């Protein structure tokens, strides 16, 4: 299959499936190896991105999904009712960011960072399918380990966990400085 045809097939596949499709499955369907397929899709992604298109292809942890571009939102709400998503409270967001950065993590470890019981938050996040069990820790009592889901990536526009903003020591320093400046600012006011 020449490249153009391959691209057409991938476009049709992503359009029809709607959901995120693993690279391996796409490669098997178009009968090419994974690396070639990935290269072709990434190429398509660039093209969609650059051209004045209303749709795009996003990558989610090794899977690909077709969706609209964010800037099309206004046009879409004019034509159809867009269901409201559940709003995450600050408490849930706080718990979620700890899980996102520290995964796999146990409930006890989450509670150690937050200083409060977190059963309710963790259960709510599981219910919203943003967090799931990823295994058991090899420790007494074998506590459950939690991690984030594909839905988490999608809901926050993150392509893979590596895509999360980095938190290196310098960043932490910046953050400290920022916090100090904030304090200074308040003093000045």
């Amino acid at each position, binding site marked *: 299959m020449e490249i153009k045809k391959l691209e057409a097939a991938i476009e049709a596949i992503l359009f029809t499936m709607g959901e995120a499709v693993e690279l391996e499955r796409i490669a098997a369907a178009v009968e090419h190896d994974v690396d070639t397929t990935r290269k072709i899709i990434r190429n398509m992604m660039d093209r969609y991105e650059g051209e004045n298109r209303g749709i795009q292809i996003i990558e989610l942890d090794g899977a690909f999904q077709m969706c609209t571009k964010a800037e099309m*939102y206004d046009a879409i709400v004019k034509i159809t009712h867009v269901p409201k998503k559940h709003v995450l409270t600050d408490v849930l967001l706080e718990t979620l960011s700890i899980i996102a950065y520290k995964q796999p993590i146990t409930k006890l470890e989450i509670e150690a960072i937050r200083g409060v019981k977190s059963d309710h938050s963790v259960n709510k996040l599981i219910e919203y399918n943003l967090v799931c069990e990823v295994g058991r820790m090899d420790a007494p009592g074998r506590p459950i380990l939690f991690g984030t889901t594909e839905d988490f990536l999608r809901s926050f526009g993150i392509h893979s966990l590596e895509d999360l903003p980095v*938190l290196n020591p310098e960043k932490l320093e910046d953050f400290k400085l920022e916090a100090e400046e904030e304090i200074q600012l*308040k003093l000045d006011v």
Partner: protein
Amino acid sequence: MGISVKLEAFEGPLDLLLHLIDKNKVNINDIPIVEITEQYMEYIRQIKKKDLDVMSEFLVMAATLINIKSKMLLPKDEKKEEEEQDPRQELVERLLEYKMYKYISMDLKDRELDAAKIMYRESSIPREIADYKEKIDTDSLLSDLTLAKLHRIFESVVKKQVDKIDPIRSKFGKIEKEEVNLSEKIQTIQRYGLLHRTFRFRGLLEKQSGKMNVIVTFLGVLELIKVGQLEIVQNNLFDDIVITFTGNAVTELDDNLVLN
């Protein structure tokens, strides 16, 4: 200090501490522990709801603060000075880590708002194709699983469940509640004071069983000093603190002062 914010508004002890640090406009790396501890205690006295879970989390932090405070009041060992860590260090690290996650969660919030504008579509696989259901091969799915393994897994589930029920506590019933009842503890101290008038602080603490009782007794003493029913004297550093009870009855303290 006027307390305008309800304790319920705070997600936990760290959140409250950050608020106090913010409010006092002090550097997180150089927390004025005496003032902050005082203000912290002031806040937790506001808890009216008898929510033991919430209460105990705030109390643990209170104990930590008091512990740091006492360590800072101790003179430094000059020989070891270089290696000695600031007693506040660990708390500062926890606060910074917690603050960092709060900060990240705000970043996530922004990302969520942006990502919510992206629309997806339902899959539209033609009927005749969708009807094709891949037969799941149960045998190969279970190929690694033996009955013995399944049994082991179930055993470990049951064991975990048993572990979760603390056999000692479950026999005791509601003992935790008494352990942290500050109002009762204050009355006990008052009764002790009426009987002995002047006594050693150490002696009072030695009569307490368990860490929680010691902490609450300590809080009770602080409380009674504040309302002017106790006077304390310490002649030299590390000498016994001598307490004199100046009240003349066992009183019901103001509701606001009751921790539980």
